[in-house]
């Protein structure tokens, strides 16, 4: 995908789609640096504008002037500025930041996150703590999630976990059919997974499950 050249993208429709997909990170990075905001995954108008500008840049780019990325950055930047100007005209004299339409908030997810956060705090954990304990290796992470999901299905383990306010390692080892060492080294992460899957946190559950599926898809591709 990365090997598709700008010339191919200019001539073939399929190649262009692949070329644009391959440059998604580039487009997102450019938008984020121009707007100073994070690009929202769904319904981000700035991103749509940038995508359109990038597509136009493929058409208008001629070799020899500069690198394509440099050219595309300029095009995207100009298009976004035009877009903001239009927005400003449309909304009168309101400040720039407010003219950018706020992305739609997922209230259900926000409630679930708040719920999970309060439950974690009972166990003396916070999302901040989880940064340090998140397994870095993909296989390890998947395994920890799988162990957590398995353990969350067993009621008495969940009950015991809430009683002792920590992960019942021995029980989880049996439920997850894994080693004590593994469970012990990832106890906080597994505990979080159990919390997510033992509570009614469907949006969170879906996100975590997608992460495993996404990873496994990538594995298959490899």
């Amino acid at each position, binding site marked *: 995908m990365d090997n598709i050249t700008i010339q191919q993208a200019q001539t073939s429709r399929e190649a262009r789609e692949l070329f644009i997909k391959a440059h*998604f*990170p*580039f487009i*997102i*990075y450019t938008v*984020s640096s121009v707007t*100073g*905001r*994070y*690009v*929202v*995954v*769904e319904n981000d108008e700035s991103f749509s504008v940038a995508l359109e500008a990038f597509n136009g840049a493929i058409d208008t780019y001629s070799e020899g002037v500069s690198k394509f990325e440099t050219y595309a950055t300029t095009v995207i930047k100009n298009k976004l500025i035009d877009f903001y100007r239009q927005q400003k005209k449309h909304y009168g004299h309101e400040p720039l*930041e407010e003219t*950018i339409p*706020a*992305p739609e*908030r*997922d*209230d259900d*997810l*926000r409630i679930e*996150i*708040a719920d*999970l*956060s309060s439950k974690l705090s009972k166990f003396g954990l*916070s*999302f*901040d703590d*989880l*940064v340090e304990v*998140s*397994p*870095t290796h*993909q296989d390890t*992470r*998947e395994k920890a*999630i799988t162990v957590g999901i398995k353990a969350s299905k067993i009621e008495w383990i969940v009950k015991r976990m809430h009683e002792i306010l920590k992960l019942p390692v021995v029980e989880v080892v049996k439920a997850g059919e894994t080693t004590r060492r593994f469970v012990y080294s990832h106890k906080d992460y597994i505990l979080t997974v159990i919390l997510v899957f033992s509570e009614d946190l469907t949006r969170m559950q879906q*996100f*975590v499950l*997608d*992460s*495993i599926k*996404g*990873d496994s898809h990538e594995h298959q591709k490899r």
Partner: protein
Amino acid sequence: MNIKNVKVMEVKSDYAVVLSSEGTFIRIVLKPGISVGDHIYITEADVYKAEELSISKHTLFSKRAFFSKRTAFTFARMALVSSVVLVFMLFKALSPVAYAVLSVDINPSFQMVVDAAYNVLDVEGKNDEARQLLTEVEWKKGQSATAVLQRILEEVSDNGYIHDGDNHILVAAALIDSKKKDIEPVNQMVESILDQLDYQSFTEGKLIISAISSDHTAIEQSLSQVISIGTYELEKRIAPVEPYIEVNHGQAKKLMPHPIKPNKQNQPEEEVETSPSTADGTDTEETTEVTTSKPEKPSKAPATEEKTNNGNGVPHPSNNNGNNSNNSNNGNNGNGGNGSNGKPNVKPTEPPVETDVSTEMTDATKTTESTVDVSTEASTETVTTNENKGPSDNANENATNKDLNKDKVKP
């Protein structure tokens, strides 16, 4: 450039925590409009680097940085490190100092370093057997020397080095401080350690424990020669040492009131230096010990002789010349390995050269008397000793006497 789609879980004052689609929690830098629950794209450039922000964006003493959790952690770490260093320094200052070296030669040869409270600082095996046995002995730094020795002896016994027959153990001790010449503290230490041993726990047979004092030189020598100080002393000494404790069926019986008899260690160093016997490397201290121990010999000789000939391989000097051929049970000689596998030879076995030697030594002693202020009693004892000595002991003495004779001729 990689992008991740993430969900914002928590927004803090300095950064936000997000859960990535891969299932990892990541800290990202704050940007306007970010809110919990947002599903956003992040790039590698957005990952929050604590050091960058806390140092470049906030000054160290700005209120925000000072009270931020990460900075507090940094301070906590610094405090922890400094306190650990402080504790370490205090510990080092208060930690026990090596006071003496104690060696135990059974045939496995052990050597331990103890502090002034007779607690063990280090134990090492001086030969292969000892090193092998030590792997089985559990001991901790700071344990009492008696406890460690007890454990060692039990292990030694379990491995058959102490049997139901007669067993000889040589204990040697030396103070590390070379300035301390007094034998009393050494005696006290050895006595204290040996008296508390529970002998029944490791032997049903006969056990003869002899003790000798040594000095700083022996420690250095034993280190360089990889032998125990006891072995070193024995190799150096001409005559054997008297036993201190005899254990029969676990019952300890003291043969002497104190493990080590006072010898010339008590005497000023100058005497040792000026003594003619020093000239050929024979220590005055040793001669004295021999002489002082001899007068008691007639009463204890039979017992000692019996002990001597049991063949337990207790390191003993000057017996490598075939004197042991008279002894019937030398079975354990093969266990040696520390360089001194001879037997204690308290009583002389062959007297042929006796007269010459004694005569020469008498002269020599006279010479000693004239040159150094050695007491008359001591010199008389020396004569007696020489009469009792076997040829095995004469190698060094002959050399000594040659020197002495030279001195004698001069006037």
